[in-house]
């Protein structure tokens, strides 16, 4: 009974937090942080604009925040950087053009791994139990 009560309390707490935050629009700072987290810092070694402490990343964060406050949408702001730097500036490759390659390659690699695993399991089943078990 204690466990059930504890689980119920946890569930109520999770639902309360979800209800409390789901309908709330993100602040300008939260939106700017999210956009910065999706962009690669152009003058850094592979870190995002949000994570980098470089002066250029700081300037980009300030620009993003100013544009969010000016009423521009997230895609509009991101597209400006893509226009200048190309898709390279996006930390996650886009689902178009050459950006599809890493996604498709990952899916193909996963599919190949699953296929090899299925074939191996089937082969094991067809072969029956190992000789040591047969002797028992």
């Amino acid at each position, binding site marked *: 009974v204690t466990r059930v009560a504890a689980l119920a309390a946890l569930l109520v707490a999770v639902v309360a937090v979800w209800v409390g935050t789901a309908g709330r629009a993100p602040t300008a700072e939260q939106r700017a942080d999210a956009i910065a987290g999706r962009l690669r810092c*152009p*003058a850094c070694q592979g870190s995002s604009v949000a994570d980098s402490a*470089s002066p250029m990343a700081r300037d*980009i964060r300030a620009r993003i925040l100013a544009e969010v406050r000016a009423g521009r949408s997230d895609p509009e702001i991101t597209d400006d950087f893509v226009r*200048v730097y190309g898709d390279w500036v996006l930390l996650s490759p886009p689902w178009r053009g050459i950006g599809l390659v890493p996604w498709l390659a990952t899916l193909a*690699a996963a599919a*190949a791994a699953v296929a090899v695993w299925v074939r191996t399991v089937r082969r094991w089943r067809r072969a029956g139990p190992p000789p040591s078990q047969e002797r028992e």
Partner: protein
Amino acid sequence: MSRARVATVALLLAAVLGVLVVAVLRPVATPAARGSAPAVTLPRLIGAGTYDLGTLRGRPALVNFWASWCADCRAEFAALRAARDQFRDQGLVVVGVAVQDTADGARAFADESGADWPLLFDEGSRAALAYGVTAVPQTFFVAADGRIDAVHAGPIGPDALTDGLDRLVGGAP
């Protein structure tokens, strides 16, 4: 599974992995190199007033992004001066843009280097982000029609400057 099949699967996986690595680690693209030089107005580093990079149209130009903390920029300034003198008759304009720097540091650097071309101060990296700067120093070769003809990231030497400017003005001086 036969050895041949294992080898085939391994080869396929290696090919997929190779494509993945190439796609993810492809070098920095600089699409600005195929576009027009952005018209950004910046304050002059020395003296009052502003300079509109949009006014570069009509003459070949070098737009050089630099910073006082950049050791390579010092040597590069000498090469820029030589190139400016060499291509003066072709109307070459050299513009320096101090970026990711303090105004005082950039001014001190400019005084020491003796640069006598327009030097601008890019507070907030406005011009750098419009041009697509990825490193300091970085030099943009701008054709007379305003098109960015080439981009050189990192320190540029006399040979690369001469080659780029030969292409820009359509023949050796």
